[in-house]
């Protein structure tokens, strides 16, 4: 057990790509926490997807021992948090477990939308904050200007910001020293009853459910019988360890310390992030103020391309949800796509990450239907229903009105692109709430329908600003609007998987671009195919895919039989990747691309 004043718990907050993971690597490396030969880049990002995409998805901790200039050796616990909005809940829970943050800002880029969102969360959690200007090795770095920006935009004192290059290692010793001297030690009472916060939990193939906890008061030991206060479940601790970042067993954890335990817990769902862990007997009286569990906000259907993959998909989804309590699933049947699942996600990135993992780690080919948000249906009989799937939309005569979730979006953008951004937000039914400048960067705050954002807002934002804008949002409220269900009919058959809820005023435009896109995506058949978008019985957009007129091999003699047979095999394999809608076959890629369409 470590003395309180020799412990520092902290996290790093930053906009994506500002160097959070690289800085974490350097801190781990310079303190010799990981042997040089075991060191790899982005060591805390353990999932393939995290490394590949350069994003952090799961919070991760590492315990670092640091001999400071004052001659004492400190225990530094770093919690590396995800930067993306979809995972804001991960950030907020981890923030509550530490006392301070390093605010990393890329000195060539400056403050971005995620910088703001994350730093506000750190301030909310009562953190002491040390600003760090990274990438000063870059010629474009302007540390002085960025310092000023931090003061102007965030309102933090940046006079003692530390200038570093996480890449070269320059300034890292100053960061380590600042963690010790400028961040507060945790407080706590060793003799009080055990009170610890459940920070995170995940499923490990060998160990089962692993729980990360931060001890506030008291001491927890291996073999202790503990109680989870929210669920009242009691467990015996089998293993107690700290992460360096690999697990190292430890006999006990005292106040201020962060570690993990296992206790024959079956599912991640049996643990509640934010719950209070205490002893079964002589426990504490009042639990810590809890977290609100993350609510899925984006829904879509996931269907196996090959119907035979339904069972493997079910298994894979079960395994993934063992480790990710934030994604919800329920069986869904689609006339077009067969059996699959309706899944709820924290956001679009979360959706993509899960789909990627299902496809890669479990080798499944999936069709993803149009992402949609949860609409609230106020029925005429007074009932209020959640609509997760446009296909379930009841007859309008029973519906009094519909509400949709709105968000408060913060966008930071170089002022030359401001016009484009305002237009984009306006097109997406946005209401401007604030517009201010920090140097040549503008910050706009918009009230937007979430439904318009889940569509392809990020992509559009990126393309109109050549990648220079940054974006973050929080869910604000539900509000009524004129929403309708738009169906897509191919050869006069409705394709349920393509149905979507849209604003009445945008339906024509959306319908038009959908049918145009489908016309490009559906291969020609031997007959002509009408493609229509409709609201109820009224067609609002239509295209006709003309019939294929010529597809015949001119020469085919004895030597060509084999070649032609191969072509036939290819056609057969292609047909397997098709979905049959009446007489029309639609390739799976067509769904994916059609659903990814731009507004």
């Amino acid at each position, binding site marked *: 057990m470590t003395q309180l004043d020799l412990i520092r718990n902290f996290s790093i907050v930053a906009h994506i790509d500002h160097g959070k993971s690289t800085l974490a690597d350097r801190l781990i490396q310079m303190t010799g926490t990981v042997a040089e030969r075991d060191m790899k880049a982005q060591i805390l990002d353990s999932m393939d997807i995290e490394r590949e995409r350069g994003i952090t998805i799961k919070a991760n901790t590492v315990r670092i021992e640091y001999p400071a200039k004052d001659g004492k050796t400190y225990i530094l616990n770093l919690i590396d948090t995800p930067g993306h909005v979809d995972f804001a809940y991960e950030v907020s829970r981890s923030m509550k477990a530490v006392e301070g943050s390093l605010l990393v800002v890329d000195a060539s880029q400056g403050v971005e939308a995620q910088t703001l969102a994350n730093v506000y969360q750190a301030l909310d959690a009562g953190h002491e904050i040390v600003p760090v200007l990274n990438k000063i090795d870059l010629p474009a770095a302007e540390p002085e200007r960025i310092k000023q920006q931090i003061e102007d935009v965030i309102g933090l004192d940046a006079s003692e910001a530390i200038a570093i290059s996480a890449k070269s290692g320059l300034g890292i010793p100053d960061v380590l020293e600042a963690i010790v001297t400028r961040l507060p030690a945790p407080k706590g009472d060793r003799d009080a009853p055990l009170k610890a916060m459940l920070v995170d939990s995940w499923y490990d193939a060998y160990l089962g459910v692993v729980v990360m906890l931060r001890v506030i008061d008291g001491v927890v030991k291996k073999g202790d019988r503990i109680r989870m206060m929210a669920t009242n479940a009691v467990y015996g601790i089998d293993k107690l360890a700290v992460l360096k970042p690999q697990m190292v067993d430890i006999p006990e954890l005292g106040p201020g310390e962060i570690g993990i335990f296992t206790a024959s817990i079956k599912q991640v769902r049996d643990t509640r992030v934010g719950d209070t862990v205490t002893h079964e007997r002589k426990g504490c009286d009042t639990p810590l103020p809890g977290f609100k569990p993350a609510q899925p906000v984006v829904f879509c259907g996931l269907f196996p391309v090959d119907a035979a993959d339904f069972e493997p998909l079910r298994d894979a989804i079960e395994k993934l949800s063992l480790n990710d309590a934030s994604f919800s699933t329920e069986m869904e049947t689609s006339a077009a796509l067969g059996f699959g699942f309706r899944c709820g996600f924290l956001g679009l990135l979360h959706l993509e990450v899960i789909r990627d993992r299902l496809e890669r780690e479990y080798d499944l080919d999936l069709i993803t239907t149009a992402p949609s948000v949860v609409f609230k249906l106020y029925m005429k009989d007074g009932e209020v229903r959640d609509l997760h799937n446009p296909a379930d939309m009841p007859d309008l005569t029973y519906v009094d009105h519909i509400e949709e979730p709105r968000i408060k979006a913060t966008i930071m953008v170089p002022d030359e692109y401001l016009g484009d951004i305002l237009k984009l937000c306006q097109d997406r039914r946005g209401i401007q709430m604030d517009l201010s400048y920090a140097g040549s960067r503008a910050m706009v705050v918009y009230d937007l329908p979430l439904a318009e954002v889940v569509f392809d807002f990020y992509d559009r934002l990126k393309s109109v600003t050549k990648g220079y804008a940054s974006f973050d949002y929080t869910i604000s409220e539900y509000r009524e609007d004129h929403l309708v269900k738009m169906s897509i009919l191919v050869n006069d058959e409705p394709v349920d998987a393509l149905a979507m809820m849209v604003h009445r005023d945008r339906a024509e435009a959306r319908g038009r671009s959908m049918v145009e896109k489908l016309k490009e995506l559906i291969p020609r058949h*031997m007959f002509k195919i009408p493609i229509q978008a409709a609201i109820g019985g009224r067609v609002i957009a239509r295209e006709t895919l003309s019939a294929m007129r010529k*597809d015949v*091999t001119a*020469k*085919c003699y*004895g*030597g060509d*039989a084999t070649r*032609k047979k191969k072509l036939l095999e290819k*056609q057969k394999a292609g047909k397997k990747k098709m979905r049959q809608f009446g007489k029309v076959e639609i390739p799976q890629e067509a769904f994916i691309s059609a659903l990814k369409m731009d507004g």
Partner: protein
Amino acid sequence: MEDWRHGGFGLYLHWPFCQSKCPYCDFNSHVSAEIDQDQWRRAYLTEIDRLGGETGGRILQSVFFGGGTPSLMAPELVSAIMDRIRATWPMVNDAEVTLEANPSSIEAGRFAAFRQAGVTRISMGMQAMNDADLRRLGRLHTADEARRAFETARRIFDRVSFDLIYARQDQSLTDWRAELTEALALTVDHLSLYQLTIESGTAFADRLARGGLRGLPGEDLSVELYEATQELCDRAGMPAYEVSNHARPGAGSRHNMIYWRGGDYAGIGPGAHGRLTLGGTRWATEAPRSPGLWLAQVGAEGQGELPRSALSPLDHAEEYLLMSLRLSEGTDLGRLSRLYGERLALDRLAPLVELGLLHEPGTQLVTTERGRLVLNALLAEIAAALL
């Protein structure tokens, strides 16, 4: 009765050399300065002996010298090959022996000797009837030279066919109608009319990929060109008996009919394919494509084949379907069902009949003219419905 007997038995022999390589051509053809015709003779004869041993006693209906440019073979070589063939298999009385010829004066000089050797039919690669287009197709001969070569062939052989490539760059419907009318006036009893296909790996494919080769017809024009071709040929008494082949009734190429009717054929020479039914199994044979390798292998091993593969009943049925559906006579559904080993669910074809792509199936399955134009897609549908 073994299925192949419905199609008959023939022999294909591949001569892999040409005077120059045409930019559209993806045949196994090569330009080579020195060709030791003696060495080639030994190799061909070795192969004839070997295949004769396997198929002895069968009656041979046709021989086809294909290429490449077989009209560049020494007449003595053709003669030696024909002698050995006649000594190996009994042949039908009116056996068809076709030789592919390029229409230049060099070859025309050999026609009489080829006839002497036993060749009964010439298939001549005319390709176009005007010099500008012949040049664009990379051909060495002029239209005049070709016409003269054709006249020579006509005098010497009873049966002479020629090939044209249409749907060329900048070819209008009117141009083609005029050219085809002119060609039909020359015709003896057979004509092959191929729409230009850009085959991958050819110089044309390259040019196209780099943005060149402009003025190729789009889908609508190529449909019109095809339809005009059917109309003019029908009127001239030369209806299509296969997608690209036209003949007076009964004058179709018997050799090619063996392929389309699912007969057996022995393949000899570099890259040659064969189909042989032996001991109840239908084998697909194939030879190494490279002339040098083939020659060396026959020399060293006494045989010029790659390992054979056995066709499953499904393979066999698919192959029969895809070949025979090219014919105006269509597919014998009784044969197809026996090959596949199950009854065919013909009612599943109803939607295709309804779309006007297939005629109502009777004993034969036959495409309509519209169906023939989309045969590749149609085949996939039929195979999915029946097999």
